[in-house]
């Protein structure tokens, strides 16, 4: 980490911070809710503090308060934020203007949404320095190029001339880090900078950020929900929940000897017991030499893919974005008719197109989506959503249907009280559970799970995975589990197919796939999954045999 002896002293001191917002529930009087309850923290120059917690924990809100900013309608109502020896909350508008972009900079989660698509990267990177008059254009650009080099961006001399859409997501995130560093601030707030990236890209960005922090002696607040990630970059970790401090300590102490139960749950979140099942003799669904492309284009998204799924077992398909995992699901469901090859289900070949398949075949194959909130019609109640497959496939009506809906709600560990709720009234985990119930209602033999836990908080995701495993025991349903998260795969899979650029590069039972010797890509993928271990990042970077596809 940074050399603290060179720049001693306190940089940021937040005391008893209280942040409130007024909410306007329709039909009720507006009320004030407290988002952050009297949180205090201190940060020394050149140090990195990780803020960690699930969504709604107040991490971003606290992070942004260090630059005196409250997102839409959020007010800082109490406490002091002391930066470089003065309380910035008392500085007024003019004070904030001098502070932001000069003393404190911000790196957002979605770089693609944070850059202005109409301007070249260089203009945006040097903007803050020019506005604050800390450097001339030539100086700032020189500094930017040096930073591009340090962040190992390709063609550092010329990348600034590109527009945001002309670089990849991982590169854009690094350009954003360069933007934050360019005006030589004292503090950078990183708000989930790697969450939206693939594991193989995340590791590069993480390493680049870590190097840049070390070399520039900048202090940082690193906000994330992934403990393994924050363990790599920060000196201290602060665990937050519901706007309250849970635990605050050195990185080693937090991940090795957590003192609070909640921290312990976060640390051990990915450990699910699952005994691998041996593949049976006859596969239930076989994908045979499928090749597919979108809209008749020459770029084949799937190249000669063959996999088998056995009754009551789980096949996990792993790979980074663009590897063709979701396309495989679309080919199996019939949404994208394959150009060559076939899908065999229960001994008979399924129609290529959706419209060629009888209702019975559609019933046997169900799908659960990544984004549960757009997978359910926002204008239908939970009862309608779960009840529709019952009506549609089994012709159930009235009391009989309601009874079955109640049973299904029980199975997904939600009560009868949810029947009349709309999706907007459910939490993220509950939404995904309702989607699971909807697919179970059809009594399918195979459920395709497309990144079902990626959009959820670790603890909630863990609950969903456990639920899926339990349901597999009870209902004897098979899963095709599409994911980019290897920890998930290890928890639930019986067999694994690793996909890379449209091809299956490694396929077999879980124990076989996860045992060395590995091929180059599987090795990269496995070594890129952050581990809850200090110093893992350096080891992983040193041991890599190939560059990730996004680079």
């Amino acid at each position, binding site marked *: 980490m940074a050399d603290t002896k060179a720049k001693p002293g306190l940089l940021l001191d937040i005391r008893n911070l209280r942040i409130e917002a007024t909410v306007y529930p329709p039909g009720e009087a507006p009320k004030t809710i407290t988002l952050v309850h009297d949180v205090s923290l201190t940060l020394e120059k050149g140090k990195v503090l990780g803020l960690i917690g699930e969504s709604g924990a107040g991490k971003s809100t606290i992070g942004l308060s260090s630059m005196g900013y409250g997102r839409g309608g959020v007010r800082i109502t109490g406490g002091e934020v002391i930066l470089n020896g003065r309380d910035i909350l008392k500085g007024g508008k003019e004070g904030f203007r001098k502070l932001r972009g000069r003393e404190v900079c911000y790196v957002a989660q979605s770089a693609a949404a944070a850059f202005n698509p109409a301007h070249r990267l260089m203009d945006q990177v040097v903007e803050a320095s020019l506005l604050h008059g800390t450097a001339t254009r030539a100086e700032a650009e020189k500094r930017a190029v040096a930073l591009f080099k340090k962040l190992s961006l390709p063609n550092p001399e010329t990348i600034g001339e590109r527009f945001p859409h002309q670089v990849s997501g991982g590169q854009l995130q690094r350009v954003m880090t360069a933007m934050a560093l360019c005006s030589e601030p004292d503090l950078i707030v990183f708000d989930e900078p790697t969450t939206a990236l693939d594991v193989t890209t995340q590791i590069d960005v993480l390493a680049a950020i870590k190097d840049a922090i070390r070399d520039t002696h900048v202090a940082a607040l690193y906000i994330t929900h992934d403990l393994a990630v924050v363990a790599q970059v920060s000196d201290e970790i602060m665990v937050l929940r519901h706007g309250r401090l849970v635990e605050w300590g050195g990185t080693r102490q937090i991940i090795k000897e957590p003192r609070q139960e909640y921290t312990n749950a976060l640390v051990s979140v990915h450990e699910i017991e699952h005994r691998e099942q041996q593949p049976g003799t006859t596969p239930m669904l076989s994908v045979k030499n499928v090749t597919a492309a979108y809209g008749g284009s020459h770029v084949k998204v799937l190249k000669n893919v063959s996999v088998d799924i056995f009754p009551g077992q789980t096949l996990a398909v792993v790979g980074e974005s663009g590897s063709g995992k979701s396309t495989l699901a679309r080919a199996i469901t019939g*949404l994208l008719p394959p150009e060559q090859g076939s899908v065999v289900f229960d001994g008979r070949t399924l129609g290529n197109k959706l419209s060629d398949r009888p209702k019975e075949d*559609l019933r046997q194959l169900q799908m659960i989506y990544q984004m549960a909130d757009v997978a359910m019609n926002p204008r239908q109640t939970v009862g309608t959503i779960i009840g529709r497959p019952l009506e*549609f496939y089994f012709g159930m009506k009235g009391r009989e249907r309601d009874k079955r809906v109640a049973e299904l709600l029980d199975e997904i560990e939600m009560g009868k009280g949810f029947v009349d709720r*709309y999706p907007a009234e459910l939490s993220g985990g509950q939404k995904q559970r309702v989607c699971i119930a909807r697919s179970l209602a059809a009594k399918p033999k195979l459920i395709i799970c497309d990144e079902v836990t990626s959009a959820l908080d670790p603890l909630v995701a863990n609950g969903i995975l456990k639920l899926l495993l339990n349901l597999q025991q009870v209902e004897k349903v098979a899963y095709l589990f599409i994911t980019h998260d290897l920890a998930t795969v290890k928890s639930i899979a019986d067999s694994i197919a690793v996909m890379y650029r449209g091809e299956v590069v490694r396929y077999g039972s879980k124990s076989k796939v996860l045992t060395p010797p590995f091929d180059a890509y599987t090795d990269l993928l496995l070594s890129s999954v952050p581990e809850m271990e200090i110093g893992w990042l350096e080891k992983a970077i040193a041991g890599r045999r190939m560059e990730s596809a996004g680079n």
Partner: protein
Amino acid sequence: MLDIRRIPIASLIGIVLTTLFVLTAVFAPLIAPHGNAEIIGDVWEPMSANHWLGTDNLGRDLLSRMIYGARITLFIAVLATALSFSLGAILGFSAAVFGGWYDTLLSRLVDLLMSIPTLIMGLVVLSVLPSNLVTLILVMGILDSTRVYRLSRAVAVDINVMDYVEAAKLRGEGSGWIIFREILPNALSPLVSELGLRFIYAVLFLSTLSFLGLGVQPPDADWGGMVKENKDGIVFGIPAALIPAAAIAALAISVNLVADWVLNRTTSLKGGRG
């Protein structure tokens, strides 16, 4: 569920005025003091206790004419809007769902219709066809449905790619369910606000046609026709033409206030119960 105290004041005014207009239209023969075409006095008499709004260019009671005019105006506008909405929305939704050549054919046809100015198109068609109410409503409805088609197709194309529509397709649902149960409820809020606007355009279009002599034929008259009948009086300082004009404006504003309110209520995704 519907608490009168929670309705914003503007919407309340809109609702009251619109209800008044509708009641007047429905019960016109009971309310009107005189018959529609009954000549009861001198030409352009001023307002008096006998004739609250005075008399028109032929000496008919203007108040009674206004009340009967409300009936004709609303009747034609409501039917034309209903026609344009059902036609435009169903065609627009199905174009978005089916896509392909069906979509292309319909969309280009609509482009063709829209490339001709509505008023000129209306004038040409109405002067060729026999002038009766049915033709009038059909022409207005079909011409207006092109706008509704454009809007509902655009809205439905967005909804059609949502995962829940894909889930319904995977389930094997027919296009009826997808159009009416998945897409329609989610497309309703932009359509309802458009409905208010389209209704007003229908009133204005009807008034324009009548003013030009191609709309409602004498002795019946809608408000636009009454402006035409009395327009010469303006030169002599007689306000008879302004009264129907003001009624058109009041109707337009109050219907829009109601549409805004409905829009606000329907955008809630929690079934309106917070």
